């Protein structure tokens, strides 16, 4: 079978091809929207046209089978139009209100999770994990599944003070948006890498390897034609492993996850914020990471009980102070919480005023 003629540098197809007629007509002319239920909303155009959106949760790893099923639904209810969100949910776009309820009924029958709109949690931005990445020190998809099962009501029904953005990254490269999320999980190492001198000598450029270390912990070792790591200085970032695979950083019994909180990206009310360390370490507990799930649930519950309406997690914490965050959540404060890296100066308390 001969292949069709390949083309290059054509870029993606133009989005206009995929826009529902109602969107084309009202492009740039939307007047307002209303959230109807946790999984449906309507956008009303200046001229009065109404576009209904039904949002469905997705595990992000989708088989072609499931995608075909979603296509069937789109054809049945939305003239074949659909989109995905920036958080990997599926959105059905309906111009006919009458089809909304039947779609919802069929989604329910097929056990789809409908929700994620408004002040609640949405899908968890996450990464490859053991499914595909050599760098992973946890599995992302499994963690996400376990967390979303536990917090499911906050996706489909329950409201929170504001949106709560969750993320999971399977290593400190943080391919998810963990560094600016309300509550996020990032997998970490805790032990100095083990060096396979023979292969380092064979496979790695020593100067590049030395330069890869942010804390200058690596020195060339001319004797072994390999390198040595100063244990005092290594903080297990794994950057040396990335540039030189025979520097093995994975340690199944000691690897695990940290939980960070209080980040956001929007500029509403307060500036975008980085997430900060809440829990420095929880061991990997596949298949369902019960300690991690419980820890996140706890933080979310304390937030829900204490924040004002519209306050994001980080805004609530900044209002009451981190002293209160640790007190209210019962999370122990450790040496790891104290910054000794880039931002130390700005994170130490230089004020005589604080809470007990």
């Amino acid at each position, binding site marked *: 079978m001969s292949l069709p003629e390949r083309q290059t540098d054509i870029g993606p197809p133009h989005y206009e091809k995929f826009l529902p007629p109602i969107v084309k007509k009202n492009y740039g002319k*939307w007047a307002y929207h209303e959230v109807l239920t946790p999984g449906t909303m309507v*956008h009303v155009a200046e001229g009065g046209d109404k576009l209904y959106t039904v949002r469905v949760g997705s595990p992000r790893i*989708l088989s*072609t089978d499931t995608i*075909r099923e979603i296509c069937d639904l789109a054809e049945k209810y939305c003239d074949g139009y659909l989109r995905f969100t920036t958080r990997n949910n599926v959105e059905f776009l309906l111009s006919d209100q009458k089809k909304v309820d039947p779609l919802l009924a069929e989604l329910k029958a097929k056990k789809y*999770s409908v929700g994620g709109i408004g002040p609640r949690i949405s899908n968890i931005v996450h990464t490859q994990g*053991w499914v595909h990445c050599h760098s992973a020190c946890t599995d992302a998809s499994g963690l996400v599944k376990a967390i979303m099962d536990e917090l499911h009501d906050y996706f489909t029904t329950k409201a929170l003070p504001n949106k709560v953005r969750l993320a999971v990254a399977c290593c400190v490269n943080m391919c998810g948006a963990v560094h600016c999320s309300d509550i996020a999980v990032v997998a970490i190492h805790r032990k100095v890498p083990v060096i396979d001198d023979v292969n380092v000598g064979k496979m790695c450029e020593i100067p590049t390897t030395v330069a890869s270390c942010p804390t200058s912990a690596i020195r060339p070792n001319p004797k072994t034609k390999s390198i040595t790591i100063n244990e005092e200085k290594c903080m297990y970032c794994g950057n040396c492993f990335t540039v030189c695979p025979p520097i093995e950083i994975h340690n199944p019994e000691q690897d695990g996850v940290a939980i960070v909180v209080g*980040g956001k990206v929007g500029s509403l*009310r307060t500036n975008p914020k980085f997430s900060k360390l809440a829990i420095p370490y929880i061991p990997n507990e596949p298949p369902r990471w019960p300690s991690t799930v419980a820890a996140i649930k706890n933080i979310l519950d304390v937030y829900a009980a204490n924040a004002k309406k*519209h306050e994001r997690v980080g805004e609530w914490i900044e209002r009451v102070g981190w002293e209160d965050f640790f007190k209210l959540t019962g999370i122990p404060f450790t040496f790891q919480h104290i910054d000794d890296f880039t931002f130390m100066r700005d994170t130490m308390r230089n004020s005589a005023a604080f809470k007990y």
Partner: protein
Amino acid sequence: MGGKYKTPMLDELEKGPWPSFVTEIKKAAKRTQMADDELGQVEKSYVTKRGYWKHGGIVGVLGYGGGVIGRYSSLPDEFPGIAHFHTVRLNQPSGFFYTAEALRMIMDIWDKYGSGLTNMHGSTGDLVLLGTTTENLEPLFAEYSSRGWDLGGSGSAMRTPSCCVGQARCEWACIDTMNICNEVTQYYQDQLHRPSFPYKFKIKVAGCACDCVAAIARADLSIIGTWKDNIRIDQAEVKKYADAGMNIQAEIIDMCPTDCMSYDGKTMKINDVQCNRCMHCIAKMTKALKQGKVKGATLLVGSKAPIVVGSLLSWVVVPFIELKAPFDNLKDLADKMIEWWDDNAKPRERIGELIEVKGMRPFLEAIEMPPVPQQVREPRKDPFFFWSESDFN
């Protein structure tokens, strides 16, 4: 096919209400050996708590330097189906809009060449096809590209730009995010497919300060819509919110960061000179408050993940720029930024890191932007600062 492995650990993850990725893998595993071996290897990872992937090798399609992430199992004998298990990044259409027809076509071809598994979508924005072999890459690419689909970015290159849904379905989009995204993607095709930068360069476009694509946190160039003139207030609609039970004082007035709003139970007032256009009041009272009419974007530069000296959020460099198709002014500025970065960066140094090393001045001079207070949250603290010869004239 399928069912080669017992997966008691993963089976646990088929329980519970959230859709299960395990179920997805199992579906594909019914049809492809790849997916079945993937299932087996992941189960093993769940038992031993470690991954079994080797570092990626360089694989790809002819004439391209990116778009494919090479991946090999470190246990090829145990899991021969995933001895090769490369991912292919298909460049998504702006705003992630599809028709069922287009998606079915993509799936059909993927079933022909790959594992039957996808990521809809990757964190950068690509439609990620999860797992194929080296020899399948060329035919697969021919099939897709002949049908109008191209690869996305990887490596030290322009990365697949991405955007929020914008004017297609949002009343707050101050700029045409999808068009901008599409235009820059097309403009940088060469840089996207042939890695020649010091490191990755990402562009993300959000229509307003809500930043629904997290542009400010994960794009080297973050484009965020904004406006310049006064917020338009519909007092009748304000009243409706109040009547519907909104505590306008607590939820809106008291939460305005610049304290520039007032509401006496009847009339809402905004002192627009003080407003910093944070979007809070508008977002929470969308029927009553509308942005001004002079619209454009703020350009911010430099955000990235924490490796190696801590995460960066993007920094404001151009407070306001009008953006009209074909966005030549934007392309010109982006070119200048990239050129300066390319000329000055070490390998694996992102543009934000380079600015931190060199200082804002050379960067701003390179893109011909004057210093303005909007670029800083506050001025410097220390008394140590440079003077150029040009300052003495």
